[in-house]
């Protein structure tokens, strides 16, 4: 039988079990467990560090489900606000990232449920401010293709994925665009890694077939 490690009690900080007085380390050098422990005691700096560490992944997951850029930003903000106010109830049995992904996925489905119909809005509908942000972030990575080309490629991908089931679509985006591993996708979608592999394989086959059909 596999040994299941017992979660540490909340009152004990992750690295201070000896009872000696503990020096507060800078947030940059702390691991997630310690940052969560500190954030649970209303250390805002620690929570800000957690945001900085996990925002990219939260954006990736939300972007895979919601698509509209402004909605993605709103969802991401809502996710972190929700996480902050329910952090005291988080007992650290699971990894912080897993917990955060679950909030993200639920928040995205909630938003889509409220809207019912998801309008397909592509990057051409960006506000001036958002376009400036995208361009400024793109300018930093000169080795990558031009931003307009990348946005166009994303639109093309989104159109190709339109016929897929929501979960399969998210899986492909996370794997092929955002660079998640199979294990990470399984964590986000709360699935077995083998299930992810099989579904990914089928989804990929379908998309490739669709692309071939479009070319012909």
């Amino acid at each position, binding site marked *: 039988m596999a040994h299941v490690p017992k979660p540490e009690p909340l009152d004990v900080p992750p690295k201070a079990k000896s009872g000696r007085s503990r020096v507060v380390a800078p947030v940059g050098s702390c691991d997630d467990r310690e940052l969560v422990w500190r954030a649970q005691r209303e250390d805002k700096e620690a*929570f800000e560090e957690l945001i900085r560490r996990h925002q990219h992944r939260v954006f990736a997951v939300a972007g895979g489900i919601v698509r509209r850029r402004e909605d993605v930003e709103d969802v991401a903000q809502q996710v972190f606000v929700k996480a902050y106010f329910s952090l005291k109830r988080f007992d650290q049995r699971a990894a912080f990232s897993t917990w955060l992904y679950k909030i993200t996925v639920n928040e995205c489905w909630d938003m889509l449920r409220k809207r019912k119909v998801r309008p397909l809005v592509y990057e051409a509908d960006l506000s001036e401010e958002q376009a400036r942000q995208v361009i400024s972030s793109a300018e930093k990575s000169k080795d990558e293709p031009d931003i307009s080309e990348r946005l166009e490629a*994303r639109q093309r991908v989104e159109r190709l994925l339109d016929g897929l089931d929501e979960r399969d679509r998210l899986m492909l985006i996370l794997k092929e665009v955002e660079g998640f591993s199979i294990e990470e996708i399984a964590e986000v979608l709360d699935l077995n890694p083998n299930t992810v*592999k099989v579904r990914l394989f089928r989804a990929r086959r379908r998309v490739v077939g669709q692309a071939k059909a479009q070319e012909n």
Partner: protein
Amino acid sequence: MWNLLKRSKRECRRLGEAIEQAAAKQAHAASVQNLTEALAAEERKHIETCQDCQQAVQEVVRAKMLFQGAASFSREERPWFAARVMAAIAARERELAERVTAWTEFPRFASRLAWVVAIVLLAGTTWFYESGLQAPAHPVSGMPESIFEAPQQAAPDDILASQAGDRP
């Protein structure tokens, strides 16, 4: 025969995982050759003989090409985002604190409020009682008006006359 098929399937599955890993390592796998270079000689040999695996490799490469260069949400830099979230949290906390203070202020004024309510109640009931005493409970004179006509009483002389008439 069955064993041979089973073995082949197991090999295909293993190869599938190896291809996935190779594809994940090579961000820009432009061709089947690029992708299979990373595989072991044995695996490459299997691909040559197995049609399913050949198709799987081709699909991985094709999918990579389709998705190549698509704008990724996770790679964008958002230095302003953490500050924006913290501002939202601070605003929410202020809002919650205001709601809480409204209720914590209540006990401070509770005794005064109780006095005011008691005085208003006393004054109100007194006025009500006084106004009840001044107004007459029943009208002093005159008959109460009715919508029905009262039966008219017969005069005593009529009764005597009728009794006299009955006698022989």
